C-alpha cells in the first residue's frame, strides 16, 4: 500500500524548497536534452484498453505516470506535464467507469494532478502563496526522471559482467586447514608423584597378615551356655568373660560375639539380658523356667 504522505509530499514542502527543486529540474532538463527517453514497447501497452486491464501490473501511480510519459515519446524534460496529467486522469476515469477497483494511492495522485492542472491553467497572481504550477510540474518531472534514471541504472548494472556468469572466481579455492597443536601440560610435582606412586605400587613388599583370634558365634554361644550354667542370678557379661578370656585383644572379639549370641539365646527364650543405662554393664541370667523375669 502506498502511503498518502509520500505522494502528497511535494505539496507540503516549503516554497523555497520547491523553487530550488524546480530550478534544479530545469537545469537538469538542459543537461539531458539529448537524452531520449526509451520508448515504451509497442503492442500491448500502446492500447489504452489493455492499459487499464493491466493496472495491477503497475507499481503504483508513479510507475503508471512514467509509463504514460514514455508513451509521449519525447524527452522527459520536454514532456507536457499537463498532457500527462490529463492522460492519467482520463485513464483513471476510464477504469472507474468500468467499475474496476482503483487503489487509494492512484486516487490520491489523481487529486494531486487535478490540483496541478488547476495551477497550470490559472495564471499566477503575484500575491499568491501557493506554489506555481510550473514548480509543481518541475517536481513531478524530477521524480519521474529520477525513477527513470534508477530503472536505467538497474539495467546497466545488470549488463555489467557479473560474477558467476561472466567473470569467475577461483573454481577450486584451497581451504585453510586448521592444524590443532596441543600444548602439553605437566609439572614437575605431577611427574615425581607419578613416578613415586608407581614405584610404591610395584615395589615387592613383605606382607604378613595379622592373624586375629576371632570367636565365632557358634563358639561364643557354646561358651556362654557353659558359663551361665543354671545360675538364676544376674551376672555381668564382663565377669563371665573375665573369667574365661585372657588377652585384652581377644576380649573385644569375645565381647562382640558373646553379645550377639546372647541376643540369639534371648530370642530362643533361654536367657534374660538387662542393661540399666547406656553403656552400662550387661547383666545376664538363665531364664527362669516359669517365665518370671524378662
Amino acid at each position: 500500500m502506498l502511503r498518502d504522505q509520500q505522494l502528497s509530499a511535494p505539496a507540503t514542502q516549503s516554497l523555497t524548497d520547491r523553487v530550488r527543486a524546480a530550478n534544479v529540474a530545469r537545469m537538469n532538463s538542459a543537461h539531458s536534452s539529448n537524452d531520449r527517453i526509451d520508448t515504451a514497447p509497442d503492442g500491448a501497452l500502446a492500447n489504452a484498453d489493455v492499459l487499464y486491464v493491466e493496472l495491477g501490473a503497475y507499481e503504483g501511480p508513479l510507475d503508471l505516470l512514467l509509463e504514460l510519459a514514455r508513451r509521449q515519446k519525447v524527452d522527459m524534460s520536454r514532456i507536457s506535464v499537463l498532457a500527462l496529467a490529463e492522460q492519467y486522469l482520463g485513464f483513471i476515469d476510464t477504469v472507474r467507469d468500468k467499475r474496476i477497483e482503483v487503489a487509494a494511492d492512484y486516487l490520491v495522485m489523481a487529486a494531486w494532478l487535478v490540483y496541478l492542472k488547476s495551477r497550470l491553467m490559472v495564471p499566477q497572481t503575484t500575491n499568491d502563496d501557493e506554489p506555481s504550477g510550473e514548480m509543481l510540474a518541475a517536481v513531478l518531472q524530477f521524480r519521474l526522471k529520477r525513477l527513470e534514471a534508477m530503472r536505467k541504472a538497474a539495467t546497466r548494472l545488470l549488463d555489467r559482467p557479473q560474477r558467476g556468469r561472466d567473470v569467475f572466481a577461483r573454481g577450486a579455492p584451497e581451504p585453510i586447514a586448521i592444524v590443532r597443536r596441543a600444548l602439553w601440560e605437566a609439572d614437575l610435582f605431577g611427574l615425581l608423584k607419578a613416578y613415586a606412586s608407581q614405584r610404591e605400587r610395584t615395589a615387592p613388599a613383605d606382607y604378613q597378615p595379622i592373624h586375629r583370634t576371632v570367636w565365632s558365634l557358634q563358639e561364643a554361644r557354646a561358651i556362654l551356655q557353659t558359663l551361665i550354667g543354671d545360675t538364676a542370678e544376674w551376672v555381668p557379661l564382663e565377669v563371665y568373660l573375665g573369667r574365661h578370656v585372657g588377652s585384652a585383644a581377644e576380649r573385644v572379639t569375645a565381647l562382640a560375639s558373646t553379645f550377639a549370641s546372647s541376643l540369639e539365646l534371648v530370642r530362643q527364650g533361654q536367657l534374660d539380658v538387662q542393661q540399666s543405662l547406656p553403656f552400662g554393664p550387661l547383666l545376664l541370667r538363665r531364664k527362669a523356667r516359669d517365665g518370671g523375669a524378662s
Partner: protein
Amino acid sequence: MTRARDDTERDDNLERNLRIVEAVLFASAEPLSAAEIAPYLDPQAQPDALLAQLQRRYAGRGVNLVRRGSRWAFRTAEDLSFILKRESLEARPLSRAALETLSIIAYHQPATRAEIEEVRGVSTGKGTLDILMETGWVRMRGRRRTPGRPVTYGTTEAFLDHFGLEALADLPGLEDLKGAGLLSARLPPGMQVPLPFDGPLREDEEPLDPDDPGLEESPEEDRNA
C-alpha cells in the same frame, strides 16, 4: 659488492612476498584485504605496494587481480566473458522491485526505507529488502539521526565483487546522474548533490545496536519515516 648483494637480497625478498600474495589470493575465492594478507608476509613488507605490482603483472592475462572496495581478488578477465559465460546459477532472478531497490540503494546510499520509497513512489515490502540482504549485496549501515531513527541501507563489498566494480565511483552512469542532480534522495536537492557513500557511518548516522536488526520493521519507524 655489498650493495649488489643487498639488491639481490631485496629482490629475492620481494619475489618471495609477491609469490605469497599471489598464493594467498589464489587460494581464496573471496576478496581479501591487505591486512588479511599481511600476516603471511615479512613484517617489513608493504602489502599495498605488492598488490599493486601483482596487479600490473596480471594485467592483460586471462586472470586479473582486481580491487573490490578495500579488498583484492583474482578474477577471470572481463573480456573473456563471451568464452567463459555460463548460464546464471541464480535460482531466482531478482524481481523488478528488488532490482530497482538495489539500484536506488547503490546510487543513493546511505538510504533509508522511506527514501527508497520516495524514489519509487510505492512502499517497499519487507520481503524486498530481506531478499536483497540475503544476496549479501545490501547491508544495514546504521540508523539515521532523525526522529524514528530509521535504518540506513548501503551496499557491501560483495555487491562490488558481483558486479565487477572497484568502488562505488565505478557505478555505471554515476557522473551523468550526479550532473543531472538525480542522486538526491529527497526533494528538493540540496545545494550539493550527494554521492553514494559506503564508507564509515556519517554524521547523521549512528551505529546499529548489536541486537538491532529486528527493530527496523517496527511500525513506529514506518510511521515516522
